[in-house]
């Protein structure tokens, strides 16, 4: 009997050590997307600073690194972000900067979906495209059929010139820009999505809701409720 409990203890210790090791960041702190095929990045790609919503004079800037295929990002984008937009962005209290952080090795359609938004941005419809992808997330994310056709249907719905959109997608015109954004995220130790930086400081808002953002912005701008 004693041997049995020793064996149990041994299994428990080995399991605990393995889980502890797995919880430590890898040497480069790099997330799964490292195994992605390399994409060349030009200086022009790096010069793009993300999709921005809100006033230049807003006292707080929130930068979000997100992946369109990530379920938490989609939930945040579809449910929480509209409130944030109404309460904080449209009132001039914050500026929102969206940065692509495709988890390429994890999600199959990350880059493709980021390209959809980039090509929509060419026609001034980036945020509408994001809404379309997030709101219909369940129809395309994390499932095998190639969603290119489905994306085109959704994009048509927001009023894009489809010839221009298709030409942009076929040429993968903004692949380098998306990769530059991803590399920037890696350099800032972004380890998952969504990751938020508020006035340059990272906040752990993985399951954020609009109330938390409101409270944080209140505290940063000295507003008492």
């Amino acid at each position: 009997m004693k041997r049995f409990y020793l064996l149990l203890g041994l299994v428990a210790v080995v399991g605990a050590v393995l889980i502890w090791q797995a919880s430590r960041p890898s040497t480069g702190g790099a997330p799964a997307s490292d195994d992605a095929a390399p994409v060349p990045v030009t200086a022009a790609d790096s010069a793009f600073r993300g999709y921005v919503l809100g006033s230049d004079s807003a006292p707080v800037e929130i930068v979000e690194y997100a992946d369109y295929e990530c379920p938490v990002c989609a939930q945040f984008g579809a449910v929480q972000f509209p409130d944030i937009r109404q309460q904080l962005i449209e009132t001039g209290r914050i500026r929102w900067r969206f940065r692509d952080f495709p988890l390429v090795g994890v999600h199959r359609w990350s880059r493709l979906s980021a390209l959809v938004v980039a090509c929509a941005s060419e026609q001034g419809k980036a945020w509408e495209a994001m809404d379309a992808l997030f709101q219909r997330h369940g129809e395309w994310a994390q499932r095998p059929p190639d969603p290119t056709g489905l994306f085109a249907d959704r994009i048509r719905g927001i009023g894009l010139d489809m010839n221009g959109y298709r030409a942009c997608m076929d040429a993968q015109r903004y692949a380098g820009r998306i990769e530059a954004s991803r590399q920037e995220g890696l350099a800032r130790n972004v380890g998952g999505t969504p990751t938020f930086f508020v006035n340059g400081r990272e906040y752990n808002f993985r399951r954020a809701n609009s109330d938390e953002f409101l409270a944080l912005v209140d505290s940063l701008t000295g507003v008492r409720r």
Partner: protein
Amino acid sequence: MRHRQVIALLALVGFGIALYLWLYKLGYLGRLQCGSGTCEYVQTSSYGDLWGVPVAFYGVVGYALIFAVALAGLRPAFVSRRWPTQLVAALAAGGWLFTLYLTYVELFVLHAICRWCVSSAVVITAIAVVAIPAAVKRDRGAGSGERSPMV
């Protein structure tokens, strides 16, 4: 008694696997050690949660229950009782059916296999294989007029 020891050991291994997957879902682990992206593909799919709770959490609770009952069944007060084996058999049967559903989803809906899920499936199957015959065998023994050692 030996079968309860085997079940406790297997349940501890299963608990470790489920805990690992649950911690991943909670965001405490960066990336699953899987050898490919398919574990994360499965875990982050819409099937990775059930009623708003990560599927792995059900595994954590289930294995913990099996482990606790198997250990309780090894205590002198309960070692000759029949209920720990029967309870473990019932839990294992439920767990195995749930695993069957999850494996179906992996194979035929997601078309992706998570190695950790397969490992857990092997563990719960082994527990069921040990526990169910032991529970049935004891039932038969008691019903055939043999002197029950459990009383």
